[in-house]
């Protein structure tokens, strides 16, 4: 056994919030997420011999969480809400979408900074919706990297892929996320939602639904083609 029972309990409880957040974003369902975390902890306990050192605990238990999620998906893949976790890196877009490249206007810097204005108007709801829209293999790398702050090495270990694949998949995932955010902006930005209704609501939990619906509204003339 790599670590003591007490160390296992301490580590598992310390990571419970992180495991729960990832599970919620994988399953998109609080009850399924809770079951996934419980099953992960149970499997981790049974597989404790495979843990080499306590330092590797985080990547190790996330690998069990991800494997458990994937095996549950495959077992229940007839359920329509479940999406495929398979991906073919070669078939994905080589040129990554970039909001910055869409918006940056170097000759207008003295006048405005549209890409920064875009970020200023981005609400939590916009990001959650875009994140939820990503395919699972993209969502999981963004969540592990940008929310849970795992290193590339830990993500590689957790997902069972090489570090180079983490690097390229994360870049594609961020491009895909930005493409969704851009599409949301175009979709909602064309409908008039008063910018004043959004002021001070960045990151808030109680933003009016209609404000959230128009959350990304780069309304300055000419901002959206």
């Amino acid at each position, binding site marked *: 056994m790599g670590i003591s029972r007490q160390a296992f309990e301490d580590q598992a409880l310390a990571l419970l919030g992180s495991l729960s*957040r990832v599970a919620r974003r994988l399953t998109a369902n609080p009850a399924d997420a809770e079951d996934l975390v419980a099953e992960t902890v149970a499997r981790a306990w049974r597989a404790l011999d495979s843990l080499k050192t306590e330092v590797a605990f985080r990547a190790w238990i996330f690998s069990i969480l991800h494997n458990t999620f994937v095996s549950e998906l495959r077992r229940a893949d007839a359920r329509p809400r479940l999406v495929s976790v398979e991906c073919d890196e070669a078939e994905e877009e080589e040129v990554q979408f970039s909001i910055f490249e869409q918006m940056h206007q170097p000759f207008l810097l003295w006048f405005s900074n549209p890409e920064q204005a875009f970020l200023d108007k981005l609400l939590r709801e916009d990001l959650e919706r875009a994140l939820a829209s990503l395919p699972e293999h993209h969502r999981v790398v963004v969540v592990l990297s940008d*929310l849970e702050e795992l290193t590339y090495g830990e993500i590689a270990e957790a997902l069972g892929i090489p570090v180079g694949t983490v*690097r390229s998949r994360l870049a594609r995932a961020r491009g895909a996320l930005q493409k969704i955010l851009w599409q949301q902006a175009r979709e909602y930005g064309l409908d008039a939602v008063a910018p004043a209704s959004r002021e001070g609501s960045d990151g808030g939990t109680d933003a009016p639904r209609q404000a959230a619906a128009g959350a990304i509204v780069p309304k300055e003339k000419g901002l959206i083609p």
Partner: protein
Amino acid sequence: MTKHEIECEQALRQVFEYIDHVLDDTERAAMEHHLHTCQSCYSRVEFEGRLKAKLGELKKYDADPTARERIKKLLESF
């Protein structure tokens, strides 16, 4: 151009690795030198860094894990 200088094309390839802190010391120094001299690449890094930070803030709003008591009981059963 010295061996430690890079141009926009390489800087743009390394933006994510820069904000993820995975460049080695030499690569990081070359990147930062370029960012001091290139407004466009600096703005790109600033944009990607802010977007990453906004994603990181999502976790602040997640509810406490409802499974804590269930997991504690599970651990006690081992």
